[in-house]
């Protein structure tokens, strides 16, 4: 076990310090561009490169236990458990039974258990299945997941090329704005209209992403800073536009656009739900990104740049061109999320059209380990959280924010595989105890320092 793990995680951190002369340059490239040491093994996982990963050795169980997928599942479980503890900690019944904890500990434990399970049961009913509506909530989950998947793919694609695209939010906003504008001002025939809406939205997103790529390639401006700033620029731009007559309903001063034409929206797939064609588009995009990354020359170049820009340059890859292109593509992918929002789910443009999607997309891509299908399923999972949380808040009064907590904990645990392995003692090392204690204590402090 130990050997297997070491072969996976050890080499990368050791890289920067090896060679004195090129260490700086290489270290800078490795960690700025491939998310710093630790993420390297997970960003370009062997399993995603092609169908067969014959190199891996050891028994099947060991491979599963040590594999990234298993760690992801454990991370989700641990995060859900911690989230449950948080829910329980504010539960009145739990507090009451804690008062006589030593007299009757079973009361406390059952209160703890019911507080945790009630919320999650409500979440499940809102996201997947409930007796009244059957699997109808699942359709809602898929609807909510659609933009998450698209934007997540955008983040993941940039990730694979070593770029940190925090700008999905801005790209969604710009694309949604353009798509919506075309959707309610131009009146085109059925079919063509939707196509034009999609094209305009995607062009907008690609443009917003390309700005970042161009600035990065030409001036070396760090994409994280530029994308964060562009998010806000896009947000204020949308706010401004929604306050101009061109974007408002006639005779109405509230910042809501007119409804998009029927011909400009994605057709609903299953009557009675909100699930629309955009979901199939998202599946197609997932396949497309998979094909691009694993079967095309340009995808290979992207990955080469992501793995080692210096080597890629030496090998004749035009790094700056790849940077611009990948950012434009990332923007375009996120743009499909924006289009799905205005042309599918919401059908109007409001200031909150992008909600938190762009930021959730980052966690989606990280949970999906930047592989297309991983991102797809991570998007579904977070879509389920989002859809279920609404129901949970109504039923149990648990604030929707718990989803943010669980989501971020999942990503934190996934980003640090040694942490999750040490919690479950998957690697019998003597250092096991310390890493577990420190961050958890810190997390508890962060939660409310005061109590």
């Amino acid at each position, binding site marked *: 076990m130990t050997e297997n793990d070491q072969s996976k995680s050890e080499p990368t951190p050791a890289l920067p310090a090896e060679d004195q002369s090129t260490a700086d340059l290489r270290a800078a490239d490795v960690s700025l561009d491939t998310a710093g040491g630790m993420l390297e093994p997970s960003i370009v996982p062997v399993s995603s490169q092609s169908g067969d990963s014959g190199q891996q050795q050891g028994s099947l169980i060991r491979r599963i236990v040590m594999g990234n997928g298993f760690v992801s599942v454990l991370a989700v479980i641990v995060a859900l458990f911690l989230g449950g503890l948080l829910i329980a900690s504010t539960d009145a019944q739990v507090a009451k039974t804690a008062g006589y904890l030593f007299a009757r500990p079973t009361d406390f434990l059952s209160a703890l258990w019911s507080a945790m399970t009630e919320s999650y049961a409500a979440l499940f009913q809102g996201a997947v299945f409930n007796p009244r509506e059957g699997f109808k909530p699942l359709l809602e989950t898929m609807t909510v997941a659609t933009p998450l998947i698209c934007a997540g793919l955008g983040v993941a694609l940039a990730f694979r090329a070593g770029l940190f695209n925090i700008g999905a939010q801005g790209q969604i906003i710009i694309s949604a704005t353009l798509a919506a504008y075309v959707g309610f001002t131009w009146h085109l025939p059925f079919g063509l209209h939707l196509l034009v809406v999609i094209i305009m939205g995607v062009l907008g997103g690609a443009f917003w992403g390309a700005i970042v790529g161009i600035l990065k390639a030409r001036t070396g*401006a*760090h994409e994280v800073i530029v994308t964060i700033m562009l998010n806000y620029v896009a947000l204020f731009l949308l706010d401004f536009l929604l306050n101009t007559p061109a974007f408002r309903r006639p005779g109405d001063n509230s910042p809501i656009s007119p409804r998009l034409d029927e011909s400009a929206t994605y057709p609903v797939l299953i009557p009675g739900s909100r699930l629309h064609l955009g979901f199939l588009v998202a599946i197609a995009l997932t396949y497309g990104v998979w094909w691009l990354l694993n079967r095309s020359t340009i995808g290979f170049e992207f990955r080469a740049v992501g793995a080692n820009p210096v080597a890629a340059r030496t090998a004749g890859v035009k790094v700056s061109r790849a940077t611009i292109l990948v950012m434009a593509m990332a923007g375009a992918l996120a743009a499909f999320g924006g289009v799905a929002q205005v042309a599918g789910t919401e059908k109007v443009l409001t200031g909150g059209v992008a909600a938190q999607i762009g930021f959730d997309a980052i966690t989606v891509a990280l949970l999906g380990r930047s592989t297309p299908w991983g991102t797809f399923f991570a998007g579904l999972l977070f879509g389920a959280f989002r859809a279920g949380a609404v129901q949970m808040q109504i039923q149990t009064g648990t604030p929707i924010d718990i989803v943010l907590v669980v989501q971020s904990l999942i990503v*934190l645990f996934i980003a640090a595989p040694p942490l999750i392995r040490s919690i479950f003692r998957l690697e019998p090392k003597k250092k096991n105890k310390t890493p577990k204690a420190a961050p958890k204590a810190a997390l508890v402090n962060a939660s409310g320092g005061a109590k």
Partner: protein
Amino acid sequence: MSATTTAPKPGSTALPAFRPSMKVPLSLGILALIALVFFGFLGPDQTAEMKISDAGDAVAVPALMIPGQVGGVVLGILLLAMAAYSIYLWTQGERSPKWLPIAFAVVFVFALLVWIVAGARQPSISLAGLVAGSVTLAVPLVFGSLSGVLCERVGVVNIAIEGQLLGGAFTAALVATMTGSPYIGLIAAAAAGAAVSMVLAVFSIKYLVNQIIVGVVLNVLVSGLTGFLYGTLMVPNKEQFNTPGRLDILPIPLLSDIPIIGPILFEQSIAGYLMYIAVAVVWFGLFKTRWGLRVRAVGEHPQAADTLGINVNATRFRNVTLGGAIAGIGGAVFTLVTIDSFTKDISGGRGFIALAALIFGRWNPIGAFLASLLFGFAYNLQSILGIIGTPVPSQFMAMLPYLVTIFAVAGLVGKSRPPAASGIPYVKG
């Protein structure tokens, strides 16, 4: 300041190719022309009234009356002169002095202000109120950007400033209410900020997780935690958990009566005074002490620092924690000074503006302070614009800090260069 910019250029061999950095003269020239044409020749013809002292002040100073168009032309010519001086220096093969862009910025902002006020429906503004309001709004930004300076100088990118501010704001409100003392709340806020920072430190230093990922995720985590606790604790029991009261304003007698400067410098809460102290201390510490030299060495070249016996990761851990504590105090300003209760996501993206200020201020405490003031000014102007009614949409004013930052990182306005090892985990080889 000089220490920051001279450090990265070892040897003078690279200089000749570098020297014609005409970006500064060029951008100054373009901005000056814009100012002259738009603020001057196309300027509004009303007279802008800028009140310097309020009616109740001990020292009464008459208001500044500046005719829009003439004022714009005069200021535009002044700007042009500064740009010309910069271009002249460039032809002589010299760099523009440091004060020039700052002076240019001040005059440009003033010209912008005259243009905006003179074009408003109600061309009158209280300069004292404007400046004081800007400083108030800038206080959290200054603390946040100082946190960023401390972290980045030691080689850890701190995207989690937003989370640290938010954590500080929440904890300040909670603890101040429960203990009944805003001062204890302030201390608790520092502890909360430090705790958020420690998570960043543990994950990025110990587990070598990408610092940007941790930062982004921490922001989400803190937003979720505070939002959750706000919903479950504070909303149902506001009296019990969310009525922190305010930090007292402690005016210094006499000095606080000086027009404009008085209220800014000498009529602040303890957090306001702490801000000035923190800026001075961090600047002095970083550039004038042995500690600062070590910190900067770790941020620029960790291998070298390690060779000289500095414990790189321990230094990083300490600095990141300290930075978090400072940002936590900044967060407390939201709930203990600006308003006296916590609401969900009260920091509203200020952490990212602080990040912008840090970059615009070139990773220097004083630069970050000035940039924060500028952004605070932009914030304040944005709200005042709405009141006096101007043709400029407030959203564009709100965009300004972000656009300015993009220009700054793209190297269009001077050159901003982060510490060399920023963002790179250090593994002892």
